[in-house]
């Protein structure tokens, strides 16, 4: 994470506070401020314990008198949640950004809505989007999302909705078809890479938490805690690698890069077309003959290609097969219905006849 890098760099060489930062230091000599260099305004970081005092002083201290809260933003830093307050002073004409962090497990920050009324809605928004609880806020109902959503949409762990969500049935059908095809051909079912990664990450997170809690209970120092966590992680990774090696089937096959293959194919075809056309022109053939020559060459090329490497079962072919199946079924349905009508059957009987015919058809297909 680049963010972590910059943070470390800041810790190595703390930048000097600017003029507004020095005012804060003068107003609150016993509070430790972190300084981050940002364009357009100065940025100070404070700890959660000092936060309420700092904001109180920012508004009430004569030298600071920040009377305007411009913006309040929540930010998700994966292990910590941050709230950023951009303040402006109409009387002093200066600006500042103040940042306070809280851990994921305990996302509580004191409210500032009693100091700046405008914070009321801003805090409601950050609460519903990031799950930060602003202690002392009069009314933390959700503002933009529906009530009782149960998850925080702006957190990085919440995925962006993908088109697949609306096509779940379709996707499931493809997945099942692939599994069946794989089972028929005796290969291991394809492993869902993404799900596997997520599972792995979750397991790791559990180990980290468990080890850390244990180390804390034992009263180890921060460095020893880190070392213990790292050792546990290493052990887990080794175990995982051993497990993977024991099950060669479980190791994911490298996915075929379909796009690259397609591009390559197109390039080959392009070269062939050019070659054939040049040859035809050299022979002085007419334009129609030239076209025919190209078409023949292309046909030959694709035949050779199919003969050389039988294409693996692809969802595309599944789809063609499905379409064909559906067409056959449609023909069958029409035929059966026409027959039923010719016989003068009732509508219920007609339906039954169709469903029987379909049943028979699918049994034949299976056979």
């Amino acid at each position, binding site marked *: 994470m680049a963010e972590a890098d910059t943070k470390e760099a800041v810790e190595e060489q703390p930048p000097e506070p600017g003029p507004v930062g020095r005012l804060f230091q003068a107003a609150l000599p016993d509070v430790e401020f972190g300084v981050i260099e940002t364009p357009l305004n100065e940025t100070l970081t404070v700890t959660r314990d000092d936060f309420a005092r700092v904001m109180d002083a920012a508004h009430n201290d004569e030298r600071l008198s920040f009377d305007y809260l411009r*913006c309040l933003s929540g930010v998700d830093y994966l292990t910590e949640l941050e709230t950023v307050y951009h303040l402006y002073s109409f009387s002093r004409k200066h600006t500042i950004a103040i940042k306070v962090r809280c851990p994921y497990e305990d996302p509580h920050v004191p409210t500032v809505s009693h100091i700046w009324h405008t914070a009321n809605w801003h805090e409601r928004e950050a609460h519903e989007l990031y799950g930060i609880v602003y202690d002392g806020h009069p009314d933390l109902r959700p503002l933009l999302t529906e009530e009782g959503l149960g998850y925080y949409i702006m957190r990085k762990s919440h995925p962006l909705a993908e088109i697949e969500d609306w096509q779940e049935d379709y996707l499931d059908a493809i997945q099942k078809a692939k599994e069946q095809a794989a089972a028929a051909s005796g290969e291991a079912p394809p492993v869902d890479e993404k799900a596997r990664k997520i599972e792995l990450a979750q397991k790791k997170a559990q180990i980290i938490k468990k080890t850390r809690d244990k180390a804390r209970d034992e009263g180890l120092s921060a460095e020893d805690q880190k070392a213990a966590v790292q050792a546990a992680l290493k052990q887990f990774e080794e175990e995982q690698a051993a497990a993977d090696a024991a099950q060669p089937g479980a190791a994911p096959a490298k996915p075929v890069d379909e796009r690259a293959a397609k591009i390559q194919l197109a390039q080959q075809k392009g070269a062939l077309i050019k070659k054939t056309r040049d040859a035809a022109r050299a022979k002085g053939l007419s334009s129609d003959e030239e076209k025919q020559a190209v078409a023949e060459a292309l046909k030959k090329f694709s035949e050779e290609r199919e003969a050389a490497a039988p294409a693996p079962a692809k969802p595309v072919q599944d789809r063609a097969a499905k379409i064909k199946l559906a067409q056959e079924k449609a023909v069958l349905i029409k035929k059966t219905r026409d027959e039923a009508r010719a016989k003068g059957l009732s509508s219920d009987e007609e339906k039954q006849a169709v469903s029987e015919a379909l049943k028979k058809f699918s049994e034949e297909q299976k056979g």
Partner: protein
Amino acid sequence: MTVEHRAPAEHELDTIDININVGPQHPATHGVFRMVLTVDGEVVTDLDPVIGYMHRGNEKLPENCDYRQAIGYHDRTDYLAQFSTEHCFVEAVETLAGLTAPDRAEYIRVILAELNRIASHLMFFGAFATDVGVFGTAFMYAFRDRETIQDLFEEVTGERMMYNYFRPGGVAWDVPDDFSERTKQVLAKINSGLNDLDGLLMDNEIVLARCRGLGSVSPEDAINWGLSGPMLRASGVQHDIRRAEPYSIYDRFEFDVPTGDQGDVFDRMYVRLEEMHQSVRIVEQALAQMPEGPIMAEGMKRILRPPAGEIYMRVESPRGEYGVYIVSNGSDKPYRHKVRGASFSNLSALRAMSIGHYVADVIIILGSIDIVLCEVDR
């Protein structure tokens, strides 16, 4: 009416407050906005604004786009001041990445943003006069002039609504050759149109009777509630980000910052009308100063990767302070992309402004905020 119909005993009956639901689909709420009024007779005793009907994840989506793809999402926040929103975003990215747009691009941006301000305020006058009861006439006047600006924008950007024209480092392409002449034509039409509006509305008895002294906000309250733009200036706070913290090239122009003195609905209208005159002044100066030259910074990469850091950029949009807070982690996508909508903060003061007024007046107070719900909900 002094005729007493009720029996004397009826006076001793208990009264209850009644809840009235307004919206979300209601012509007076300027979009999909709902409010639950609690009324005692005709007087509003409580108001609960319900927003979020337009929430489309306009902060989350750009966090999954690269910096140039995110421009279009800003058009879709404040859809009446698209150039201001784009301006804010591209200035933020430029500051973060250490880019400087060429002068000509900056002038184009300022001219378009100021014309956009006029178009947005004309929209306000059309809609607001309808709220007040000057039905139709002002709307037609305002839209006749707004249409000339829309035409100009269409000639420049090819779009009537979602312009997507500014880029980090400049603008997408140069303006047409006759841009200067066309803009002058548009300005002439606007000037005469503004006089029409002035004569129609500012001395209008209906408007005065309904707007004077309504929904007054003191300067202290305005600041504490986070109001900005015309809402803040109507309360007498002479604050304009273009003047107080100049961004882009706004330090090169002469213009006044009009303020009101009572902070009521009429002052908000007055401030907006005056602002349009000031915007005309700025556009005239910018047209005179606009240099020839490139419209895009040199050495722009296809994919922009600003260094790790963060920035809060703010512009004076027609509705007030439009801000963008971007946290970059050095990749081609913003790590955090927060939009501070001016309407969002302005609307949050609606409850405090409305309590104690008649239901019919609450509609006018809401109209005077000039909300754009897409910016509120994002």
